[in-house]
């Protein structure tokens, strides 16, 4: 499945029963759904897993009712929010727990949306850059682990990360000001 498909195209293909499209949709939004559960609502891992599976099961069942295919992201976000709130309220019936304040979750969701936009921007970088940035920032791997995995001297990792961040920044600025865009990365 190519990464060039828009969200709406992907949804359309899922609706047509294409298994590869569903795999891609789950892959594309798995981090987002996971992050809403564990970062915005601070769910424990086992609760987050239930929410994660519940959200994708509902999405699969109700994809036909989505009115605007382009709106898959906010729709998934809303499904996830609802599932998280249900989970917190069910837990509170057994043991009093404090729900995160609405302003807090809203602010985090805004940041997660921005982060997901950035993830899309990563696609324009070389695979090496995507890999090293993902390992260091998202997977929280050390220079040593990254060096071993990518067969690179640990001493060069920091400079590579910086260089890849620079390329990402240029790419984003290029998108903001297309006239300034300076070629492939």
């Amino acid at each position, binding site marked *: 499945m190519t990464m060039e498909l828009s969200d709406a195209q992907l949804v359309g293909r899922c609706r047509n029963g294409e298994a590869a499209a569903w795999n891609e949709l789950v892959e594309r939004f*798995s981090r987002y759904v996971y992050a809403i559960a564990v970062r915005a609502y601070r769910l424990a891992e086992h609760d987050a897993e239930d929410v994660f599976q519940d959200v994708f099961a509902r999405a*699969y069942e109700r994809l036909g009712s989505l009115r605007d295919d382009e709106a898959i992201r906010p729709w998934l976000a809303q499904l996830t929010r609802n599932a998280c709130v249900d989970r917190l309220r069910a837990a509170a019936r057994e043991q009093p727990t404090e729900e995160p304040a609405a302003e807090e979750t809203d602010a985090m969701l805004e940041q997660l949306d921005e982060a997901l936009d950035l993830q899309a921007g990563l696609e324009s970088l070389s695979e090496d850059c995507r890999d090293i940035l993902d390992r260091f920032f998202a*997977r929280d791997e050390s220079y040593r682990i990254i060096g071993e995995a990518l067969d690179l001297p640990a001493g060069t990792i920091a400079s590579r990360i910086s260089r890849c961040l620079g390329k990402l920044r240029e790419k984003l600025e290029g998108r903001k000001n297309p006239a300034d865009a300076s070629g492939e990365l």
Partner: protein
Amino acid sequence: MSAPSGYDEERLGELLSLLPPAPAGWVRAAQELPAARLGLDEIVERARVDAEFRVLLVADLEAALAEAGFEPTAELLDAVRACLPDLDQ
């Protein structure tokens, strides 16, 4: 893609760190949903028309599914269990 505001490297790093990968097993399970649903549909249909299979499902769900060629994953077991009361009617 909407342009994130502020492009300094620190901010980019912060944003990248906000989206760690979900555990691989969770992603795989979600990706297998359509296949699992197909399996469920097939099991329910067979249980409707095959009384003996229905009895086996009630007696030993996991063994009956394995015997019938379905991998009795926890998700499938839960899903079939949820359907059993309807099948008895």
